[in-house]
């Protein structure tokens, strides 16, 4: 193998080597939502490909006595929100956002993470405890003095959006339901899909899971909900890669058994599905066969429904929804590279006037905008979006990603729902019309 070939191979494999493609044109800076609102972050090029020359390969830069944080040449990388816009617009194919995430992890490696960053990464633990004591935890999170104390001690901003914990987890609800139904034969991969609910549907938003399960059923798919843990993205975002890898392997071990049988894995959280599709391999460097098989089997729910429609298999008996619906496309959705499937689905609903808000980022970026020092940045990033949604006068908005929904809802006071909740509403409107047409005496089964 020649040196040139070795370099070619490495550049395909490692995010970091894509820095070689950087032309230093700074186009990434023009779209960076964080640099748009604060000079705490010098911009994606500076902390990404430009600093990368000091981080090449697996070696660490030379430690200079007296200079702190020498593990990374630029500590401001921590202000990258990970939205991924830089990677999207780079004309040279540099993986800027991915590079930033990896260098943040490297910067934090070997040091104990801040309690706050560790905690924000532990969505499973927080969820379990929160649900277990839900009346208390929901009270506490809505209590101003407690939130003020949380801000001072832990560093989570007092105004950061937090959803309400559910009374029980989706996993436990589902187990009960299955028990009531008794043992059922699991249908084959053409009649059933695996649901990756993620933490939001498990601990906070069971209604999203319910909508997904009902819509899948209407379209001929039973839902399988295997045991699963957090996808690991909150840990990745907080630079805690070792724990993220543990989560990834736990999920892969379970999911791969289904994926190898041909089952598709459907998620309602665009960030979880993107993590499974891309980041297990790209960010966490898990390059075994399992990761690829599972990635290839994973679909965002709107992507899946649109694919059904492409094949002429989607139930399109949507009733009329006469409303304006501002829609925000989350950053993680753009990283899927699948366009805006929710907008295409909304176009199938009669009367629904969905409008893409065409704004870069709502500012929350997972857990970024919850942090004390980053909350004002997140709010400034999202401000034009909030203004557009308020100005639309709409009573509800739609967005595929949970933390974005919470952020938008908190900032605008406008109820913000997952696209499939809107679609379910349209199906029900269709059912009501259908029932009216059939009339009470219509013979069954026609």
């Amino acid at each position: 193998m020649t040196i040139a070939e070795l370099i070619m191979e490495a550049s395909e494999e490692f995010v970091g080597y894509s820095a070689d493609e950087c032309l230093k044109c700074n186009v990434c800076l023009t779209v960076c939502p964080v640099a748009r609102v604060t000079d705490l972050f010098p911009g994606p090029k500076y902390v990404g490909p430009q600093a990368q020359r000091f981080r090449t390969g697996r070696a660490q830069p030379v430690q200079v006595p007296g200079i702190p944080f020498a593990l990374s040449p630029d500590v401001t990388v921590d202000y990258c929100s990970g939205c991924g816009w830089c990677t999207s617009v780079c004309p040279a194919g540099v993986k800027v956002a991915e590079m930033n995430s990896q260098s943040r992890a490297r910067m934090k490696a070997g040091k104990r993470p801040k309690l706050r960053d560790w905690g924000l990464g532990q969505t499973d633990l927080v969820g379990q405890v929160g649900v277990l004591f839900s009346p208390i935890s929901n009270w506490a999170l809505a209590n101003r003095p407690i939130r003020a104390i949380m801000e001072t001690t832990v560093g989570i901003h007092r105004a950061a959006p937090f959803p309400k914990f559910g009374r029980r987890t989706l996993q436990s609800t589902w187990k009960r339901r299955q028990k009531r139904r008794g043992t059922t034969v699991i249908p084959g991969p053409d009649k059933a899909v695996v649901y990756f609910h993620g933490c939001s549907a498990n601990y906070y938003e069971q209604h999203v899971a319910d909508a997904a399960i009902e819509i899948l059923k209407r379209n001929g798919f039973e839902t399988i909900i295997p045991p699963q843990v957090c996808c690991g993205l909150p840990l990745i975002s907080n630079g805690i890669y070792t724990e993220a890898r543990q989560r990834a392997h736990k999920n892969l071990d379970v999911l791969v058994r289904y994926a190898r049988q041909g089952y598709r894995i459907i998620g309602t959280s665009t960030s979880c599905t993107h993590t499974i599709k891309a980041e297990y391999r790209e960010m966490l460097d898990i390059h075994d066969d399992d990761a690829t098989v599972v990635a290839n089997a994973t679909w965002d729910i709107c992507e899946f429904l649109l694919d059904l429609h492409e094949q002429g298999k989607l139930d399109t008996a949507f009733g009329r929804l006469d409303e304006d619906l501002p829609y925000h496309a989350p950053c993680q959705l753009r990283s899927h590279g699948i366009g805006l499937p929710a907008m295409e689905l909304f176009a199938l609903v009669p009367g629904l006037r969905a409008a893409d808000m065409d704004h870069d980022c709502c500012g929350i970026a997972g857990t970024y905008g919850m942090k004390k020092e980053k909350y004002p940045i997140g709010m400034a990033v999202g401000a034009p979006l909030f203004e557009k949604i308020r100005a639309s006068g709409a009573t509800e908005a739609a967005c595929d990603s949970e933390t974005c929904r919470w952020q938008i809802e908190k900032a605008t006071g406008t109820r913000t729902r997952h696209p499939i909740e809107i679609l379910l509403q349209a199906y029900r409107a269709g059912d009501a019309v259908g029932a009216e047409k059939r009339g009470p005496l219509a013979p069954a089964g026609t």
Partner: protein
Amino acid sequence: MPSADVVVIGAGLAGLTAAIAAAESGARVLVLAKGHAATHWGPGGIDVAGIPAASTPRDGIHRLAGLPGHPYAFLGDDVAAALEWIRPHLAAEGVDYAGDLDTPHQLVPTSIGGTRRAAILPAGQAAALSPWAAGERLVICGIAGFKDFWPEAIAASLTRERIWEGGNRPASVTPVSVALPGLAARHNLNALQIARRFDDPAWRTTAIEALARAIASVPGSGGRVALPAVLGIREHAAVLAAARDRFPAAPFEMPLVPPSLPGMRLYAALRAALIRAGGRVQIGEMIERVEHDGRRVTAVVAAAAARTYTVRTGALVIATGGIAGGGLVAERDGRLTEPLLGLPVEAPPADQWLAVDAFDPAGHPLEKAGIRTDAELRPVAADGASLFDNVRVAGSLLAGHRYIRERCGDGVALTSGRRAARSLTAVPAGHAAEPGSE
């Protein structure tokens, strides 16, 4: 569903122009591009034919059209119409252009202290277009702490007669620098940060006054003042109006190193015009392949996380740029290829890729490499026969022009983009070939 009447690959001037023209005719248009580039790298003017021999762009078009294989041979008569067509689209987004095909070429000073030939420039640079009157001065006004614009160096260079090719030039060039409030950045102060500050009306007022005082402190009166191209993004028109109102000399912007604010304003205006016309743009799409059924392209397939993203389409415009844009790929074995459809590339053989003189005025043999088309922009084989019915090529991917050296890239992009779209959408509906109708 992911389908379109026309898919355009590339979001530079050619691609966006094609998309606007197609959307205008009622087609469902989707632009797919791997990133931002051409617009964000350029100075934001519309270079039509800025060759040294040409007195005006129109004269330049005639001269270039006479060169063997130049796209102006078949596009030249259409440039004026394309220019007048795009103007209101851009004006509607607050981006106005001065000059037309009969505006005399003027040597416009640049931010590295050189000059370039221009005739059609955005409003912010328009004051550089008129000839220098006897005794007229030029002030170069910089902003303290901003490292992309050095007034002393620019002025020192512009004082040299040969920079102006021995012709019309300002009587004096004087540098001045001013500290603007609240610009002490934590890191490198960049053009975007300053431009964003100018968008804020309150800061703008203070800054414009500070700049006006600094310019007034330079001995002499009237004349013109050159500033770095940082005068606002969204509010550029308002910033420019305030500067014209308050400054003791006529202001114009000097485009800077990328990212170029005038280029970004142009991109934003084109994108907004497209969306207004009902089209869509998706950036970050790496095209993996284009599917076709015989002579008709049927779908475009882009890379996506864990799978591909397929858009079915009735027609395709390829506006992917030349070698720099990735529209042409140089292989190690000495071939130039077009990666999407494997279109035949008109290029010199590999043994002629190396020029002896890097700055040979005759140009580099590779500059003219590209895709040969017919007058309707359909790609053709070596014998001139068209290869696909529903494919058009636009912009710097076209063979036969040297878009930088001949300063004709914007004219070719604009005109070919518009004609490509019109040629595709003018096909009568019944002719939109059913599969198997051949």
